[in-house]
């Protein structure tokens, strides 16, 4: 009788993790972390955290101790980034994570427990706020910055707008809360404005403005690049300055620091 083996299935899964970056001097940093936790005790509950050790000097000996100290405070660590290979004792936290993804915006740490509960459900993070002056400020040591890995909002799925027809000249499609996908072309004299990325399954002949309100990791994709203007997070490029070999070709526009790059879609 032949045995059928169970089928091994693998699925892709992405989660939102917070990245905590300790900065020396460490004792002061840990004090600041404690003060923060006191102000917003539930903020770290159930949130997976990656510790980024990139700012620690090479001679650091107590990296493992630091990790334990963070874990003792009830922070759920799922991985370590940017540890120097010579540091010992970090095996407990598994292999170092592969190269950092694009950093997102800083997350506002709420100042009260109530706000902390609310922030878990909130959608768009506001600009980072300085800690309230009422609590004794820890000293010039920088308050822990928390930059999210991979995405930019501590919210569930971002909304997305699907437009199932071409956008005619003079029309303007705007969607601040996420990506816009267009099945059709964007005519010359039309514009598409998105908070997230823009995907055009057709010719882009008009204007595409992505990454509104500070999302510099937004991208613009199209099957045929004939755009009048592309802009991502305030950085724009007009048709004149676009690379000639991309005109009329499937292309992706993205930001490399402050530079607009337009490359083939592979």
């Amino acid at each position, binding site marked *: 009788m032949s045995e059928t083996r169970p089928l091994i299935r693998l699925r892709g899964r992405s989660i939102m993790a917070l990245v905590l970056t300790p900065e020396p001097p460490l004792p002061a940093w840990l004090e600041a972390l404690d003060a923060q936790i006191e102000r917003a005790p539930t903020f770290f509950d159930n949130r997976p955290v990656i510790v980024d050790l990139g700012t620690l000097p090479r001679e650091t000996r107590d990296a493992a101790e630091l990790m334990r100290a963070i874990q003792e405070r009830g922070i759920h660590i799922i991985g370590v980034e940017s540890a120097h290979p010579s540091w010992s004792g970090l095996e407990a936290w598994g292999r170092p994570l592969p190269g950092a993804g694009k950093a997102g915006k800083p997350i506002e740490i709420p100042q009260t427990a109530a706000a902390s509960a609310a922030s878990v459900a909130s959608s768009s993070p506001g600009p980072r706020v300085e800690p309230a002056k009422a609590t004794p400020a820890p000293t010039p040591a920088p308050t822990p910055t928390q930059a999210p890995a991979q995405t930019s909002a501590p919210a569930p799925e971002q909304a997305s707008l699907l437009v199932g027809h*071409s956008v*005619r000249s003079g029309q303007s499609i705007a969607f601040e809360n996420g990506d816009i996908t267009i099945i059709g072309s964007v005519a*010359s*004299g039309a514009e598409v404005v998105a908070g997230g990325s823009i995907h055009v399954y057709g010719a882009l002949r008009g204007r595409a403005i992505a990454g509104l309100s500070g999302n510099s990791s937004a991208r613009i994709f199209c099957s045929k690049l004939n755009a009048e203007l592309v802009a991502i997070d305030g950085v724009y490029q007009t048709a004149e300055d676009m690379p000639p070999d991309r005109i009329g070709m499937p292309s992706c526009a993205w930001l490399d620091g402050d530079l607009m790059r337009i490359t083939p879609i592979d």
Partner: protein
Amino acid sequence: MAKVLVVTSGKGGVGKTTSTAALGAALAQGGENVVVVDFDVGLRNLDLVMGAERRVVYDMINVIQGDAKLSQALIRDKRIDNLSLLPASQTRDKDALTDEGVEKIVQQLREKFDWVICDSPAGIEKGAMMAMRYADIAVVVTNPEVSSVRDSDRIIGMLDSKTLKAERDERMEKHLLLTRYDAGRASRGEMLKVEDVLEILSIPLLGIVPESVDVLNASNLGSPITLNNPASAAAKAYFEAARRLRGEQVEVAVPMERRGIMGRLFGRKVMA
């Protein structure tokens, strides 16, 4: 059931009035009861092209304002019995058009005629909006060149949003009429090719009317080209377009470049 057709373009000078007259005459010659309506208040031209400029007494604004009855304003064509014209005012402007007034007139015309063809003014303001508002079918007249194509695209966007049909979520039947097509210039890349225009505008093609000196000759004589010179290439294109409007399946032929003996011998294009 009467059909209201709007001939529009966005861009000026592409051939709306010429096409309105030509299509109107072609349909009337085919036996339909047709009225052509001039919506270009203040800059009227349809009466000239129809040869009726010396018989205009009342116009559409007079009817809207109650100074005259519709039957008094309508001018019957002398050559074809079932073709009539409702002229526009030359002394007033587009602000005199009102929504209720236009609606009432279109309603009354629907009862009298099989086809109500509205000649839209250029632009995207009140005159153009009023002309398209109550239409069932749109003919978008476009020249195969970039500015005309972009303006036509804008107008198509408005047909899909500012008309009564659009407000009722019904689809308006739109057709592309490519006019002043010059095959030689298209093949040399000086003018857009038919496929390029269709790719950008994405509406079905009604016909391709070649550039022709006969058109100006006809309008000088105050006669639609389909009446004045039915054998000309332009008139033939209009006749075919009229047949397609009535639902017939006729294949669209892209006009070829015409070169006479002299052209072939000496390699230069002779004026056809």
